[in-house]
């Protein structure tokens, strides 16, 4: 990655500039500045940035490489679970130690572990720590899990799928099946991740009990903005140059690329895995801001929304994915959060909480049919090349 790379890709520089301005404006409006913007809205924007990051990853795997994965939200969720395990363990440990501190006889290590287990798993009728929580006391190891678990899952799944030359709609179905299987597994109480309760209280960061949420929210907002910036530059680099040429060629005519001597499966596996890891990092930043993660987050519909965002924003251009994710997800929370006024028609009243999905579905169909370049396609009118 050298200087000329950024100069050759002015859209990346423009994006970074826009992101920086956005970050500064939010800081000024937040409690750290004028105090106009509520903490919860800062969190919403931070979460939106994480969604933008996974959308960029989705755009690379789908828009550039032609793999319509309906499973990338599963990697996002795994990232969230991995970081959530440490958050929950460390916080519960703090609470347990505080409450046991008043006892006259100092508690043994076993008693402490049992008490923490009871606190965390009591809700699913257990107090034993499942094997997968083995590293939950170490932030470093759990952060490693954020990258390793989805990375390995994507690598193994991708290897099996691409090696068998599963492509197109069959691959989409396969990724969706993987996502569904994971969600159904997590819904079980004995999955070791608290079943449908999921992990909660993730907004309380251990070690920062006395720090106000307004500060924490801003810190996560910055971290998310940084992650988006780094992820964007990484993927702009991957999709430029010869690598970009090859993966776009795979999207357009896979077998031709094979006859050119490229091992197509390796490329797909590379793209699938690297985007899965970035999706997981986005998830690991998202859920501490959301405060809770449960298996419903991983349900296949989430991955389908992801594809819808990218399609509406504009496939095959990274900023399109960012625009799509930000625009649709913010609009979605406005409509479903009761922000949009109901429309009384006399005989029927349109409640947007119910009708938003219909509107989204119609826009998706309309964009696919009439504006395949999505919202990002509008930029082509701004920078019209002399022809």
């Amino acid at each position: 990655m050298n200087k000329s790379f950024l100069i050759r890709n002015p859209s990346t520089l423009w994006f970074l500039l826009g992101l920086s301005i956005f970050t500064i404006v939010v800081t000024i409006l937040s409690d750290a500045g004028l105090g106009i913007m509520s903490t919860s809205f800062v969190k919403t924007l931070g979460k939106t940035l994480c969604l933008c990051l996974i959308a960029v990853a989705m755009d690379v795997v789908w828009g550039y490489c032609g793999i319509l994965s309906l499973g990338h939200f599963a990697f996002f969720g795994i990232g969230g679970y991995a970081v959530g395990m440490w958050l929950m363990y460390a916080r519960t440990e703090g609470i347990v130690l505080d409450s046991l501190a008043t006892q006259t006889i100092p508690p043994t290590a076993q008693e402490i572990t049992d008490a923490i287990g009871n606190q965390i798993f009591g809700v699913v009728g257990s107090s034993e720590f499942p094997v997968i929580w083995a590293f939950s006391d170490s932030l470093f190891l759990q952060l490693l899990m954020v990258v390793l678990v989805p990375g390995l899952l994507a690598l193994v799944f991708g290897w099996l799928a691409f090696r068998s030359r599963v492509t197109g709609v069959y691959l989409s179905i396969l990724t969706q099946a993987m996502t569904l299987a994971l969600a159904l597994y997590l819904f079980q109480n004995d999955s070791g991740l608290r079943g449908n309760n999921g992990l909660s209280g993730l907004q309380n960061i251990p070690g920062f009990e006395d720090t106000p949420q307004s500060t924490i929210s801003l810190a996560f907002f910055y971290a998310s903005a940084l992650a988006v910036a780094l992820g964007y530059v990484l993927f702009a680099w991957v999709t430029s140059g010869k690598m970009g040429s090859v993966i776009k060629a795979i999207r357009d005519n896979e077998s031709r690329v094979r006859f050119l001597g490229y091992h197509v499966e390796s490329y797909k596996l590379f793209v699938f895995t690297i985007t899965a890891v970035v999706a997981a990092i986005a998830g690991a930043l998202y859920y501490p801001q959301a405060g809770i993660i449960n298996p419903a987050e991983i349900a296949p519909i989430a991955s389908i929304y992801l594809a819808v965002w990218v399609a509406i924003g504009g496939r095959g251009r990274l900023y399109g994915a960012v625009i799509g994710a930000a625009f649709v997800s913010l609009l979605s929370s406005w409509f479903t959060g009761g922000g949009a006024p109901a429309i009384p028609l006399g005989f029927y009243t349109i409640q947007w909480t119910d009708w938003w999905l219909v509107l989204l579905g119609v826009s998706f169909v309309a964009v696919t049919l009439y504006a395949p370049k999505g919202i990002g396609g509008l930029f082509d009118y701004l920078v019209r090349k002399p022809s």
Partner: protein
Amino acid sequence: MSTLLEVDGVSVSFDGFRAINNLSIQIGEPELRAVIGPNGAGKTTFMDIITGKTKPDEGRVTWGDRNISLLGMSESEIAMEGIGRKFQKPTVFEDQTVRENLAMALRNPRGPFAVLFYKKTKEGGQRIEEIAAEIGLSDSLTRRAGELSHGQKQWLEIGMLLAQDPRLLLVDEPAAGMTTAERELTTDLLKRAAKTRAVVVVEHDMEFVRRLDCKVTVLHEGSVLAEGSLDHVTADQTVIDVYLGRQ
């Protein structure tokens, strides 16, 4: 001229239909060879077998000086051995520029990480210029391949084959849909390429084959019906009966 490719006793069936039936062909290096035959004679399947797209039921396909078997190798491995293929329908990457299309085909390491960290080299750029000159697309390097005319796309694809620097070029109906002037250029291009390597041209068009002025193999129902100069095979009574007689 030494034998580069030897197809020996190869048969393949699709759902009971014998597309290739005990086919044996030898290609030397360098050599220009035309393969002709009526529809369904097995010309495209013959190419599919050599390039690894179709696995034969029986027979051997041996390649190169060390007589290695191509059966069991993947398409990309066979391509890296030095066999380039041009499809019947021009298949270039229309979204990308002529230069990008050629750069992708250049003989360079093909692994994902080698490609990710690939740096443009002066030699590579020169080679692209040379090939572009060869295929008459010097002025179009920055154009999107999708904007090219049908004939230019065919040439670009031949150029991509040359960029791969293969020892054997398999060219499927290069003249289809070309104007007379374009055909002449294509003939010259293939003849020049065949000076240093083996070129196998599958073609329907007799006039085009006559211009190539090379050894001809006539396929019929999946096996070789006749082989020799064009005049020799067109004088062959069985060839006239099954192929030429129909016209």
